[in-house]
């Protein structure tokens, strides 16, 4: 498997060919990856791809059937106790007691650990100060997730697990959560997250592993993956010049030109495509009403690697 050639210090998480089956169904098959210290690492894929199973094996909440996992140099199942003090966990779709207050939850969690952070300060940092006496059931989705982040951070962990953190949140709450996650990294912690949102992975993660049907398809920085698998670029020109289409087609970097009304979509290889199109416009005095470029995204990479869209 190709790993981007970064400095390979001792990884925080090392997963080596793990496999997990539920009856006849293979949830995770031959999955391997490393998480480096101080990075935000994302496991991305559609629902049911094996993200949560993989993460829960790494957290020590499940045992895998085959393969080896090491977290901070320890076995997550055998050294569960020792690891619990050093990792923070946010689970997918977890709940708390309906009528527990925010402050009570944070201070109870704090009491479970040897060296907890100041709970009140954490509540303040996560913007829950107005809600500290509110019952869990009265919180909004975003507030609940912020509380779960607070609980995941209360023991000042070295490694934080975030499983589908922003699922079901509105875009504004999602952005606020992204900032919080970046803040966690800035405190020098390592973040391991899962998401089925490609935009989230692209904006947040330093490196991602794409997983589909329980197998890792590829691993790398989002931009590197895009460049590796989708090297093409698209220029969209709106023009009423009838000759434009043929002229574009003659360019060396252009692979295809399609039109829809006045809009011409020019696809080609990255590099000189934009320059060539601009030169062509200038040379033949083609009047462009609009001009924009489009770069492929992780979503395109996913589509290309797996042959299906992430949302089905």
């Amino acid at each position: 498997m190709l790993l981007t050639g970064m400095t390979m210090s001792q990884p925080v998480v090392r997963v080596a060919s793990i496999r997990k089956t539920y009856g006849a169904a293979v949830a995770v098959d031959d999955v391997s990856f490393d998480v480096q210290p101080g990075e935000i690492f994302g496991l991305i894929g559609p629902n049911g791809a094996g993200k949560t199973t993989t993460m829960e094996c790494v957290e020590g909440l499940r045992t895998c059937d085959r393969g080896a996992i090491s977290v901070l140099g320890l076995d997550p199942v055998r050294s569960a106790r020792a690891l619990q003090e050093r990792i923070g966990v946010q689970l997918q779709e977890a709940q708390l007691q309906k009528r527990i207050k925010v402050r009570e939850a944070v201070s109870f969690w704090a009491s479970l650990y040897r060296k907890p952070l100041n709970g009140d300060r954490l509540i303040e940092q996560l913007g829950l100060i107005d809600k500290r006496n509110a019952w869990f059931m009265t919180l909004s989705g975003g507030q609940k997730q912020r509380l779960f982040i607070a609980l995941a951070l209360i023991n000042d962990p070295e490694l934080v697990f975030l499983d589908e953190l922003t699922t079901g949140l509105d875009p504004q709450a999602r952005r606020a959560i992204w900032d919080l996650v970046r803040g966690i990294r800035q405190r020098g912690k390592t973040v391991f997250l899962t998401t089925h949102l490609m935009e989230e992975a692209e904006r947040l993660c330093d490196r991602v592993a794409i997983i589909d049907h329980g197998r890792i398809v590829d691993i790398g920085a989002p931009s590197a993956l895009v460049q590796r698998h989708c090297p093409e670029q698209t220029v969209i020109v709106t023009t009423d010049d009838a000759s434009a289409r043929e002229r574009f087609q003659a360019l060396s970097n252009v692979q295809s030109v399609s039109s829809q009304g006045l809009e011409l979509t020019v696809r080609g290889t990255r590099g000189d495509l934009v320059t060539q199109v601009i030169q062509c416009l200038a040379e033949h005095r083609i009047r462009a009403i609009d001009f924009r470029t489009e770069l492929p995204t992780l979503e395109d990479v996913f589509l290309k690697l797996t042959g299906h869209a992430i949302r089905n």
Partner: protein
Amino acid sequence: MMRGLWRLTWLEIKIFLREPLGVFGTLLPVLIFVVFGRLFGRQMRGASTGIPRALSVDLPIFTSLLIGVSAVSSLVAIIAIYREGGILKRLRATPIGPLTILTAHVTVKLLFTAVTLAAMMLAGRRYR
């Protein structure tokens, strides 16, 4: 060993009292006992003992029913709700042990059963 036991027990007591059925559910058996006592208590005195039936027969039956309901239905329901809601799973990722959680809930149930019983006995004094 049981880190967090007392804190969790105290927390669950507070949470239980916030439930709509918390205080009401604790006092309801007392209410039923008093109403039944009032309706039938005075007529039926045991021939040999002279103790009202409400105290000699009804209270023990009530008591066993109450303990049964707490143990079999309430406790199981709470654990089921906690499991279904992912609360237990979330707690599994913390240093708290499953035995601690169970002990806390049993303690809370016992405590509120005891409160009901004590209230019932106080109410029964009037039939003495």
